[in-house]
């Protein structure tokens, strides 16, 4: 189960944060600070997993953004990376060659897409087409 998902820019700015377990805002900010400094300082030649407190952080860098998923000790790390990649691909298809600016100006859209992919920290839809279909059906309602 994913505990939280973070999108952090290379400058350490939060672009998206989503906790799936209840967590007070104050702790969220502290965690973001700690996790982003850990990850931004890792050299690109090292592996994409690291242990953090009682959890594992699986992250991947896409262009200028780090996508970070915090999973539990007994979760499958490769699956977490696949989930992150799945999310990135959905974003990419929706925005069409997504860039950081898209996510800044349409941060709510990124959340809506994430909500179609994950719920309570679990993957709910593994088909990109289905995700995009659901999103595009909701768009005209707005």
């Amino acid at each position, binding site marked *: 189960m994913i505990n939280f998902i973070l999108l952090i820019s290379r400058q350490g700015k939060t672009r998206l944060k989503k906790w799936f377990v209840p967590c007070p805002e104050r702790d969220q900010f502290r965690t973001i600070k700690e996790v982003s400094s850990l990850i931004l300082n890792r050299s690109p030649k090292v*592996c994409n997993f690291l242990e953090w407190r009682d959890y594992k952080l699986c992250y991947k860098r896409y262009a200028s953004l780090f996508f970070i998923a915090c999973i539990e000790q007994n979760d499958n790390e490769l699956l977490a990376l696949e989930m992150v990649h799945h999310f990135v691909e959905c974003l990419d298809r929706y*925005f069409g060659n997504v860039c950081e600016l898209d996510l800044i*100006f349409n941060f709510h859209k990124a959340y*809506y897409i994430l909500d179609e992919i994950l719920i309570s920290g679990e*993957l709910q839809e593994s088909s990109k087409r289905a995700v995009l279909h659901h999103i595009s*059906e*909701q768009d005209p309602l707005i």
Partner: protein
Amino acid sequence: MKDDEFGRSATMVFEKSLTAMVKGIRAHRGNESEYIQACITEIQKEVASKNMSTKSMAVLKLAYLTMLGYDMAWATFAVVEVMGTNRFATKRPGYLASSISFTDQTDVGLLTINLFKKDFGSQSQYESGTAINCLSNICSAEISRDIMTDLLSLLSSSRAYLRKKTVLCLYRIFLKDPPALRTCFPKLKDRLGDEDQGVLTATVNTFLELARKNARNYLSLVPQLYHILVNTQNNWLSIKLLKVFQLLSPLEPRLPAKLVEPLTNILNTTKAQSVEFEAIRCVVRSMPEGSAIVALAIEKLQTFLNSSDRNLRFLALDLYKEVVEKFKEKTSLKDLHDKVLTSIEEPDLTVRRVALQLLDRIVDPSNFQEAVQRLLEFSRKATLNDEFIGTILRMAARDRYALVEDFAWYLLILGEISRNMDSSYAATVAEQFVDICVRVPQVRPYAVTLALGLLDTPAEAERDSISVCTPMVAACAWLLGEYSGDLEKPSEAAFLSGAKVLLTSRSIQALDAATQTQCIWAASKLYLAVPEHAPSTVAQLHELLCSQLPSFVRSTHLDVSERARLALNIANFYKADAQSLQSAKGLVAEQLLPVKPDAQAQVPVSVDLDEPFFVIEEARPSFMPVRADPTDPYSLASTYKDDLGFASEPNRAEAPQSTAQGVPSSSMYYLGKSDERAAAEQAQEPSVPEVKDPLAQMRERLEAQRNAGAPKYQVMRDDVTAPGATPTPDAGQVPSSSSTATLPIPPEKELTDLQGRLWTVCHRGEHLAVYVCIRSPNLRKRQIRLELRCERLCAPELLVSDVALRFPSAAHVQEADASGRMLVVGSLQERSSKVKANLDSAPFLWPGVFDLRCELEYLVKSASSEAAEAQSLPIQLRFPATTFLAPQPMSEDTISDYVSSKSDLLGHQTAQALSFEKTADLSSLVGRCAGLCHFHGIQQAVSPQSQDMKFLLVGAVQPPSAATLEGQRAAPTGALVICRCAALVRPSGLELRITVKAFQQ
């Protein structure tokens, strides 16, 4: 941009659209917070607006600002309002903001219940979906209780989209409201048969998370889950199922065998690495060692380890930790070893740490040296080298240096490490250095020379500072003082240079007080040892002490000054007179043995120092003395401490070392005269610049030694523990070969068989005899079973019938009725069949021979007379003393502690000597006896040459309870009965001496 409704309408309704705000923030780089504060003031106004679109936009902007770290707790009420609007377009930002910022603690949460109810029933699946999404984030027990029925109906909704979301959301709800799980379980289980793949995956997912909490509850799902596993092609689903089976297979013994086929299938066919890896992990965690599938999985894991993808390499290494732990077979370990060593060099700290942990587990004595050399090389290259050093030290110290074969070599490594001045492991290095020398007598000659070399800095350094870390200086000083006798002969030069280094080098006085004290005392010890080992240097050493110590006496550290004064006084007292100095040897004669670091802490605090540790027991009148023969090693000693052979322990440990000392010139460390002369020259002219690095010198020596043949080391792996201490379990301690062993007590079945043969006569009268067999008491039920039989003894014309045994009222017999336990109903023929009687064992408190008074009743009728004559006889059922003991598992140490601490409970002692014909296997015989008499037995170590054997048997008496039976009273709490058996091999046969100690007869 695809669409931007907010942006377009912003000019009309909103003060500022989201896009405008984000642009504004980006434009105000440098003073963003000022700009954002202005925005927040605007938002505060907008939130109060009646226009729902304005409100919704304001909430969305706030949600953006929370990401930048601005609090939006003040706006929770507005968020709920926005969630409650009718249009999806305005509603959605409300749900978004609440799932970002609300938690289960948010107090407006209860206001959302009706909103959820309304939206769950909405026509649009997206409204319901958004609501479920939000619910999974902010659910609390109260919300769950009110909303459960709506969720249950969603669970059987016709739309897979909603079923899927509900199933996943339910797990969060169960966490908050556990009783909900019971209500939902049947419906949730039905979802395992859902035709939609997404719902199916979601359901398995939810069950996986539930099984992580308590797997046992979900064993009933195994058939369904297995069916899905065999039939699915979905990777996500497969991984989740493999995870569930990892949790379930330890609980269901039949499961691993069933899983072999699907797992093999997955391993061989899957293209997805995540699935493959999960399958490997599942095999490693749930399959038994040695099966074909394990071999297959390890082979696959090997390819992961050799993969070019560093993520896979890391995961493989990590999993190998489990493999090495679980499967002891050393297949392909050589390869692994190389791989691990290369991984250690990786710049990735995570990988490196895992590799070091793994290395720790896979080294064995054959590759330990190589591994250490590699680690040492890396540590020289790396800037952060403490990790490597730490691993070396940890590996070596494991199981009391079990991996180290060549101790001289390892000491050299320690010396090399100690050159690193600021390692955080400096203290550990010094500790190991000393510890090894104490434990391995044979390495001492090499160690002292190495210590001298380390202290004796090459003069080329010029700075006159000692180039090893401070704790190591102290360690070397101590070694020099303690083992000066091991310096190679003739050792005059070494003695002199040793004392000189300890006292004269100026840098010593710059070190901390404790180290200075060590150096002073080491120099004094050298001086005291001089007459024995290097008599010609007495005068020089004396002069050195007298000239150098005064400067230490003036030290600002009080303890340094005090120690220096003491040493100076000793030197002044004995002068340079070898004769009188000889008499001072006793000051430092006692050899030190390895002591557990926490030995002192184990001594109970309540110890009164005036009171002797061991109370010498005086012989009691009941003590039956056995011939006290000074040549007889097994004659009874005055205390159990001696009985148990503790006092002789140090002697035994010292034995090999004294032989090593006796013939130092034949030692393999002895290099011959030429080197020695060179060393002496160096010592005399320490300022010659071409002095070699002492470590390099020692390395050469090591080579020379190795060429001379492999050294044999004996390691004292036992610690001396504090007397009277309550030992704490020490995981690191390995039982050494000579330690005690638990006596093999035969299996229960064998004992029961034996017991069944132990029948005793308890009555033999005019008409009949009664036999009894006493079984082992059932400690849990507190019952004891008796088996009874009668035999007819009288003439055939008499008719004996209706035999019954009436027990005293205090002894409850289960099967007895008002007339007692019937042994025979009707007339007694030759022999009666076996009759059981279960006695309540609680009243039997006293561990001694006990006669239970019973009445035997029967009818006798002669052929002539009509009326039967009732007979009633008192008989006694005799219980042996050991009947109600319980085996007390204790080690030799705990017994000795018990003996020394609870001497008041062992006031009584009896001894007996028995002779036997020679038996083949005494220990199994004693084991059988111990089993029958309910003792825990251990076999004590004796010297390997003698064939004698010693055993210790311990039994606990029944816990006290109210005494109801005549002649029984409660034994003191914690009382034990301890027997010591010594079997001596005599030409005539075997002599067994048994001593019993108990609290009273």
